């Protein structure tokens, strides 16, 4: 079961996902698991970079607190997920933030490219409610609960 620390700790997650429905699914699961987590949602790669680099609409740091976990979909409009990943891992500050790819694509080349850019983890959204819920829960448990962060 979840460790007590998880249930009460505040935690900032950045969710980069263009599909509204998928985002909603993730929200619901995370809310159950991590009620005190703050999940910020951006809908495309450009917005994700603006947020992380604190520019454009997201210049105000209050609007864009540095997340402790980035959940990244790959197929995004404007700037795609892998490019965002590369940017993040290139920056000395941002690369310390765990980046987890959460995508429908199980194509080997996406997997290769993601790991080539030092992704922390790669998850494929299952087409089953139970599994999906479980996945997100475990996700939260692991990265928020177990994982140590500098």
């Amino acid at each position, binding site marked *: 079961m979840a460790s007590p620390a998880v249930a009460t700790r505040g935690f900032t997650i950045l969710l980069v996902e263009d599909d509204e429905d998928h985002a909603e*699914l993730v929200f619901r699961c995370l809310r159950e698991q991590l009620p005190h987590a703050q999940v910020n949602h951006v809908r495309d790669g450009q917005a994700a970079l603006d947020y992380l680099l604190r520019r454009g609409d997201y210049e105000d740091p209050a609007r864009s607190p540095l997340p402790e976990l980035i959940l990244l979909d790959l197929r995004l409009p404007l700037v795609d997920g892998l490019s965002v990943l590369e940017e993040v891992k290139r920056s000395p500050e941002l690369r310390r933030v765990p980046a987890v790819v959460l995508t429908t*694509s199980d194509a080997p080349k996406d997997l290769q490219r993601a790991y080539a850019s030092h992704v922390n983890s790669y998850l494929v959204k299952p*087409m089953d*409610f139970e599994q*999906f819920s479980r996945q997100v829960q475990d996700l939260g448990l692991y990265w928020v609960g177990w994982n140590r962060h500098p």
Partner: protein
Amino acid sequence: MSSGLAGRRDDGFLGGRLRDWGGVATAGLGIYCVSFFAWTVLGGAPGAAKAAITDVAFIPAGLLAAVLAARTSRDDHASPEACGAWRRLALAFLLYWTGDLLWWIFKVGLQSEPFSVSFSAATFFYFAHYPFFLAGLLAFPTVLRSRSRRLEFWLDAATVLLGGSMVVWHFVLGPAAAHSSSSTTASLLYLAYPVGDLVLLLAAAVTILSQTDDATRRSFLWLVGGLVVDFVADLIQGANALGPGLVSGGPADGFFMLQWFCYGMSAHVFQRRARPKRAEDLEPQLSFNLLPYAAVLVGYGVLLFAVVLNWSTTFGGLVAWAIALTGVVLARQVASERENLRLLGERAARKSEARFRTLVQNASDVIVVVDAERRIRYLTPSIERVLGHPVDGLLGRPLATLIHPADLARALGQLADAAGRPSVAGPAAWRVSHRDGAWRHVEVTALSLLADPDIEGIVLTLRDVHERKQAEAEREAALTELKQKNAELEQFTYTVSHDLKSPLVTVAGFLGHLERDALAGDKHKVSEDAARIRQAVTKMGALLEDLLELSRIGRVTHPSQDVPFADIAKDAVELVGGRLEQRGVRVEIQEGLPTVYGDRLRLVAVVQNLVDNAAKFMRPGVDPLVEIGSRGPDATGHTILFVRDNGIGIAPEFHDRVFGLFNKLDPQTEGTGVGLAVVRRIVEAHGGRIWVESSAGQGAAFCFTLPEGKGN
């Protein structure tokens, strides 16, 4: 029978043996004859014993010579003509030998005097050998091939006959006959032998002059030697017969014996060494045969001699003038003969050149000769067929004017390379200009004949490979297109499967929530979840519809026609009318739009899509305006059509992605993202191109080209 110049064929045990002992036999014959000759000349006065030995001595010698000649006639190396000739010579020797044999039989066996004036059997055979000998000599591949040459020969032979007999009679046989008052028949008989030898000499001379091979010549020289010896022997014999009387064992017999050695040697040398050319290979030897002229001179010399000895003014004067007259005629003959020879030479040269010319002119490849400065000195007429240029137009021009500029450096390099070595440089591929301006691919080989005084240039052979190159290029293009299509297909499959998965994830996820919420009795949430599921299903349906539409674009379902673009624009705007009104979008269709040629329905779909798109990306604070128009021709001469809006525009880095499958630049907008991909497919299927001109915030113009219709 002959196997040419290949190795000797093994012709069996006996044949092999015969071949081997030839040299030994000839050497033996030589020793035999030479010692006999020495004996007759130096070994004391003729006596009965000497006579007896002499008569029998001829038997083995003559037979051996005949056998050697027969052996030569069976040689594999010689041509059929030479073999035939030696067969006749062998027969001639055999006939002569038969004469000797009969002489011996008559003299020793029958104890009669065979050399009675009456025609005896031996004499018949002696005479018989002449025609066969002559036939043999003339049967060698010589130049008596044309009728005129044959006529010339026989006339020359007659000259030699007449002149020779004059000399022989006057100086040798005449005096001898006068002294012993022999009968006319006898005199004629003994005149016939040496004169016959002279005719044979003429034939031999003609034959030698036509042989170009040293070894063959040597064989014939032995034959000539034998004939000369025979001539001398016949002279002596004749003088003796008509004069003091025949004597066996004298010098004449020594000479007769020598002749056998010479004939045997000739046969052996021919067989061993001679490689006479075949009749077809021999070129007519245009040389001057002096023997007939010598005969004439000698004959007249004799006449003059006799006249001077018995001078009488009238007669003498007449004869002298006759000689002078003949001299002039002879000189004229010589002159015309010389001229004849020259003309024949010219004709032969011209014939060979004509042959060369015909072959070269009619070759299908183009042959070009350039000089050291790379100017064209010679062209075959085939240039007209291959490149359309007439020959005169190009002579003297630099070769560089024909060559494509991109290939020029390489071409000149090839020429330089060819000039530097004796072998062929190439083949290399150039482009050369056709008269109509197009470039044709040719394959070129170059050979330098700069050092050859007849050519003094570099010979180039050009082969038209244009069709081949074109076929190759087409194949390459087809291959590339195929690879491209395959890559597209792969990408397409990947994209499609991925984008159909997303809605399924949504459906599965919300089904789970739906179940939970239903069990918990939360009606509000249940409807929410159901709505999301419904949406996802609709999205999938729309995606599949668009995909089907996209694949349908590939197949032509409607025939193409000429349609004014203005009509297409109007139809499209009507179809999108609802949404346009909703958003207050104004559409302007320009005047003077061209007529295009294509599938009307599909083209309407193109404009519809573009206008629809434009209507979606409006800029806040600006009255949305969509213009449909055309502008001036592009680089390839096509009119450019466009659908322009004043909306939010598209940043340059996204211009390519815009047409990609499922690439939506703004996820908030409706639609599946397939629209522009469909538009591009349709435009490209018509053979046109489509692109976007825009920058962020400046609106966007989607520009495309279509085939022109009639009626513009």
